[in-house]
């Protein structure tokens, strides 16, 4: 099962899919694209539970990723 965690005011909201559930995969991919293009989110994939050093910046939705974390764009404060 893959999970996409979208950072928000509740901590994060999880979107999950099974590889054989094409509808769930498509819905997750659409949400991924929307977040990247409209909200300029940055996506990091990692094997579930591993430290940030094992994460990888991804530009396209990967349904085989165990966990995708959708970060917000950053700016100077």
């Amino acid at each position, binding site marked *: 099962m893959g999970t996409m*965690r979208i*950072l*928000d*005011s*509740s*901590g*994060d*909201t999880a979107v999950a899919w099974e590889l054989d559930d094409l509808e769930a995969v498509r819905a997750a991919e659409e949400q991924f694209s929307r977040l990247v293009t409209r*909200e*300029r989110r*940055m996506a*990091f994939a990692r094997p579930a*539970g591993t*430290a*940030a*050093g094992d*994460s*990888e*910046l991804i530009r396209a939705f990967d349904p085989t990723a165990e966990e995708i*974390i959708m*970060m*917000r*764009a*950053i*700016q*100077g*404060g």
Partner: protein
Amino acid sequence: MVAGYLVLDELGPGRQLIRITTGERAGTELVLIAGYLPGVPRLADLVGEEVAPIDADGVAERLLLSLLDRQQRAEWDALGTFCVETPWGRVRLGRLYDIAFKPSGGGGLRLCVVPDDHLSLPLCDIWANLLLVLRGDPAQFFRVANWQREGERWHVGPVPLDQLNRVG
């Protein structure tokens, strides 16, 4: 089954604006009133199940801890800050608007970098966000960072990495 809700605003004594986050009523915003008022439905009656507030800070801290390596976690537990190594030097995260940067070439800077709309995020989400950017795209971090040398005024990014790391 326990549904979750998020407190959006404290409206006054015993009154909170909340958003239901799970179940069929997810997305519904309403005012939660403490205690029982005759004629006013209970939240559990509206949602159809018992409800509990979401511990956003706890959720964010669990994510952050899962992203830290052993050394960073020990620092976080002891100091409330942790270091991230980058190709240009060491960044210490944990103080909002006051990120310490030790360039490889020596000296030190204060940096200020935040995620978009950062005030809507639990604090630990801010550090998780910046940690992952530093790991996955450190150049972007330094490109947007506002920076300050001790005793000087703040400068708008990018941080002058070449100048800082030039060995004199």
